[in-house]
């Protein structure tokens, strides 16, 4: 059977659908962190009113999903899924916990961008170091640093910008 056609999320995705899922850390075990950055289009203009979604393992690297062999030990207070919307200047902000390393992977968060002008979703992955990872290794070496979040020296805040197109474009993965 053929997969149904995607279409853009458009400008009117309800704010509350995003805002109620913007804190994954509230009841979770682990180090609370903020991941924040700007979503920018060609020419580095802001992509206002877009949606950024996140899927990640808990602080022990366990996915809250029955396919994970360690599912039974997943942190019951950690949802794994979060969502943020961008403001007038293209900024998003999500609160979560620092992900643990899943078996065979470096710590990471899956990221999805949904926006006006994108007829389909864009997916990428944000990492916290350049530790070996089978997905990061698919990215040309010169571009890998674009997928590594920068930690603020004094706080548990990580900066990750998503440049959809143009110079310093974020690497995105096939879908």
């Amino acid at each position, binding site marked *: *059977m*053929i*997969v*149904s*056609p*995607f*279409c*853009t*999320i*458009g*400008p*009117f*995705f*309800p*704010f509350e*659908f995003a805002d109620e899922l913007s804190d994954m850390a509230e009841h979770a075990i682990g180090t609370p962190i903020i991941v924040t950055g700007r979503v920018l*289009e*060609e*020419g580095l*203009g802001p992509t206002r009113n877009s949606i950024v*979604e996140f*899927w*990640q393992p808990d602080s022990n690297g366990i*996915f*809250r*999903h029955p*396919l*994970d062999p360690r599912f039974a030990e997943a942190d019951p207070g950690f*949802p794994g*899924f979060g969502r943020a919307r961008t403001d007038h200047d293209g900024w998003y902000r999500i609160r979560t916990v620092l992900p643990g390393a*899943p*078996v*065979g*992977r470096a710590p990471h968060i*899956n990221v*999805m961008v*949904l*926006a*006006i*002008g*994108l*007829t*389909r*979703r*864009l*997916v990428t*992955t944000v990492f916290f170091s350049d530790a070996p990872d*089978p*997905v990061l290794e*698919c*990215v040309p070496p010169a571009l890998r640093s674009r997928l590594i979040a920068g930690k603020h020296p004094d706080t548990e805040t990580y900066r990750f910008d998503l440049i*959809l*197109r143009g110079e310093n*474009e*974020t*690497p*995105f*993965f*096939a*879908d």
Partner: protein
Amino acid sequence: MTKEYSLYDDRSQMLRYIDRYPKSFTRTPLAPLIQRPLTLSERTGPIGLAQQLAIGQLDLSRPKADAPRALGQLISVSGRILDEDGSPLRGAVIELWQANAAGKYIHKMDNHQAPIDPNFIGHGRLVTNEEGEYQFFSIKPGAYPVLESGWWWRPPHIHFSIFGVSWMDRYVTQIFFPGDPLNETDLLLNGVPDRATRDRLIFEFGDTTMGDVSSVGYKRDFILRGHRRTPELD
């Protein structure tokens, strides 16, 4: 070995660049999308949302059960959610949003000079049953202008966001109503090159009902990515 796949140039999907839709040219990446193996991280996804969020039997046509209904044509929308192998997706969360009968959203970004309907909320969530089926009542949305375009009126449509069983099958779309003349000029609907695929963005006319709730029916099934497109890393 990991099978490579891509929907990038798939004729069954909407084009990434659409003429006269300027943001499609400033937001679509220049670089080809990078192939990668699918690990547990991509093959899992949010399946616990139904427990986490308030989700109920959905009637978008009124704010609560004893409230007056919104203005407009009462409709019943139903269908099934399946994966590529034809297996029903039970417990899949669906998020819905749409304009009221006058073509107005309850949303800060909506500058269209059309009236708000106090009895129309315009968004909600529901979950599929054991057979992968969903059903909700609403009113038929109105058309609305894309003000910055200078000419483009969006035909009536309902927005769907669906959570399947993995990160890879996360799905967002818009579904249109059959026979609307604005369907012929809509940039998004006509951004699907293949005619048969385009029809899969349009509701099928369903059954009319008469009784406690009389409504006009519309149907739309969805096929999300399944096992065939999610080979394992091994």
